[in-house]
């Protein structure tokens, strides 16, 4: 992975208001060969997404300013960001969150605690699926 040029590395936008989690995933993603951008809330996530157009967005759902569901709904409603896979990340384990997330347009759903390596697997799966879809 270190051999890959910096620009060609896939960009992952990590959205989480909990700094430790954000930084932990960012560190492991970079360790795993991804470029990482970070956002602390939904609004920031939207700004970063429109600006950077990442390959995958990891979206925590409980966020200040604008929650993950609303942010996802807006991303999926915008032509520029519509195609970006969104993986919902939540510490909420109750049913209903999943449904809401799906309704908002999330492409995958992951419950915290989620170990970094499991999350990276999920991100890789998303990129592969997106590539397969665009190739078709």
């Amino acid at each position, binding site marked *: 992975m270190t051999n890959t040029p910096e620009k060609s590395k896939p960009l992952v936008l990590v959205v989480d208001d909990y700094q430790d989690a954000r930084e932990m995933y960012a560190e492991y993603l970079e360790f795993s060969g991804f470029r990482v951008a970070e956002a602390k809330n939904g609004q920031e996530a939207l700004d970063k997404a429109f600006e950077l157009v990442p390959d995958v967005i990891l979206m925590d759902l409980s966020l200040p300013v604008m929650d993950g569901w609303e942010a996802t709904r807006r991303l999926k409603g915008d032509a520029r960001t519509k195609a970006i896979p969104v993986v919902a990340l939540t*510490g909420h384990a*109750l*049913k209903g969150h999943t449904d809401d997330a799906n309704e908002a347009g999330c492409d995958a759903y992951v419950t*915290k*605690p*989620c170990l*970094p*390596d499991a999350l990276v697997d999920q991100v890789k799966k998303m990129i592969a699926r997106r590539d397969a879809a665009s190739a078709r």
Partner: protein
Amino acid sequence: MASPAPLPPAEADPGARLVLAEHLLACESAVACARAVVEWLARRHGAPAACVGPGDGPGASVCLASEGLTGAQQAALARAWDAPGSPLATFRTRPGARWLAPDALEGAAMPGGFFAVPLGRPGATAAALLMVGLPGPAVPEDVAWVASSAGPHLARQLASDARAPRRPEPDRLLRRVINAVSDPVLLTDTDGTLLFANGRAEALLVAGPDASPGRTRAVELNQRLFRETLAQGGTSVHRREVPLVDPLEGMDLLFELVTTPVLAPDGPSVVVSVLRNLTDLGRATQALGESYRQLRATEREARSERHRLDRVLDSVADPIILTDPAGGMVMMNDPAERLFAWPQSGGTSGEGAADEATLRRVRANDALFASFLANLLGPVNAGVSRWKSQLTLDDPSTGSPVPMEAMANKVLGDGGELTGIVTVFHDRTEVLERARLLERVKEVSSELEARVQSATAELAEQNEKLRRQAIQLEQASAAKSQFLANMSHEFRTPLNAILGYTNMLLQGVSGEMTPPQRRNLTRIDSNGRHLLEVINEILDITRIEAGRMPLHLSDFGIPELLQEVMAEMDPIIARSKLTVETRLDEALPGVWSDRQKVKQIVLNLLSNALKFTHEGGVHIAAEYQNATGTVAISVKDTGIGIDVSNQEKIFEDFQQVDSSPTRAYGGTGLGLSICRRLAAMLGGRVSLQSAPGQGSTFTLHFPRRARRT
């Protein structure tokens, strides 16, 4: 239409025959009769004629009458009547007329011969012989007619002459007079032997020889009755009744018999009897008697009717009084008597004072009744037909007041006049009592109603409280669920970082670590995972309670599932130093159920077994029970075992066998509770067989094919 048949040609001389017949009927003796016949024949034929018959005394015969014959001829004929061998004697017994030659009879010859004709009843010995001097054997018609019509008459006369040959004969005119009397008149001797009877009497008391047997018997009976009655009277003038029978009709007749002895101037004394028919009188008397009897019966009936009415009236519990138009009491029934009648005098001694009081009360009652009746009496109240009022009478015997309702009705006669007044009393004690009770019931019921209302209000208040409590409870429950969910989230966020960093360090993201560092980090990881498990268990209970644990049914195999379980538990098994064996039924079919939940239950049971077993091993077995269509996965350990008293408790939330602060085994106490709830969601259950020190066997039973709920 046929006209009447013409009459036969008139007789040659019907007038002459009629004269003879009338004459014969008027004859009173055989001699007269014979004379009439002989004279008639002699005149008709211009020939001699004679009639010979029996005379007085035996063996004496006489010539009853003769015409144109000498005395010698007459005597000869008389002799020939009963001379043995004489032709006349033989003619008596032979029917039919005979002609005799002129010289056939010695001393009595007639020129040209003569006919001898037997006279009497047909078929009987001749009573007399008629001799007519005529030539030739042809019997002239006149002779034959005379023989047939005069014969029976003469025979009767001869017979009657023979019975009473020398009785004084009443004068013919007298006879006719007597015959004309409409009552039977008889002349008898003192013994009752009949000397003479007029026509009416004959009809009752005399029967000719040719009478019917019925008439003969009736006449005999009448004669006997008559003689008996006569014999009672003696010879003086007497009057008595004699019952006789009508010989023609057979009806009973009643006669009054008046007898008068008469001394005949020339003979023995005779008795004149006059009978007067009393039958109609008797019938009238009888009818009168019958009417009287009926009257008596009617009276009796009326009396019994009256008695019955009395009894009926007496049987009525309400007093009834019948009053006359002036207000006087005519009749009252027993209940009325008790109130209004003076008590019978002569009561037992010692009750004088009581009697005095009783009388006073009766008097008071009577006065009340009289003033009540005054409303209907007198011309002022002529238009009033009924009067109703309420009187309070006194019970004469006890003095207690009797509230009464009195209803008086006028009884009017056919002409609309007042004939009486009927008053019916009705005891109102019961009615008043009932009204009082009703009032009381109403009071009580209104009290009750008030109580019910207050109780209802209280109940409503309590209901409202309960409702509020229920809402609060619901809110509390929701709050609890929300709290647990939030807590879970708040636990997960740092735990996510802890486990994440530990994982990264163990992967060597921050460079290689020394073995002691790695060992310690592994323990951090292990404890973090345990913490996560606890959080998950709490969350599971919350999810199940909140109904947020859906079933995800799929096809899967038990062996693969058990392999997964063993793999996940491998680190713990390795550390426990216990032998864990798995035995699977060869014929274990695939199942249709919630794989995740089955796995969670088995994991839980296995981790429990490992936790409470220190030596020995754990056996996991799975089998299919065909009969019930269920799969059984059992986890058997050689651990500490559970006392029967605790076997149910351990399935409850947050319950452990030892919940004390000094307990030897940790845990939330939610594992088995979750297992049981999950098993129930699968349509199954978890069973336990255990004894302290003997180890435990937990078995999950669940249907091979779950039904979607």
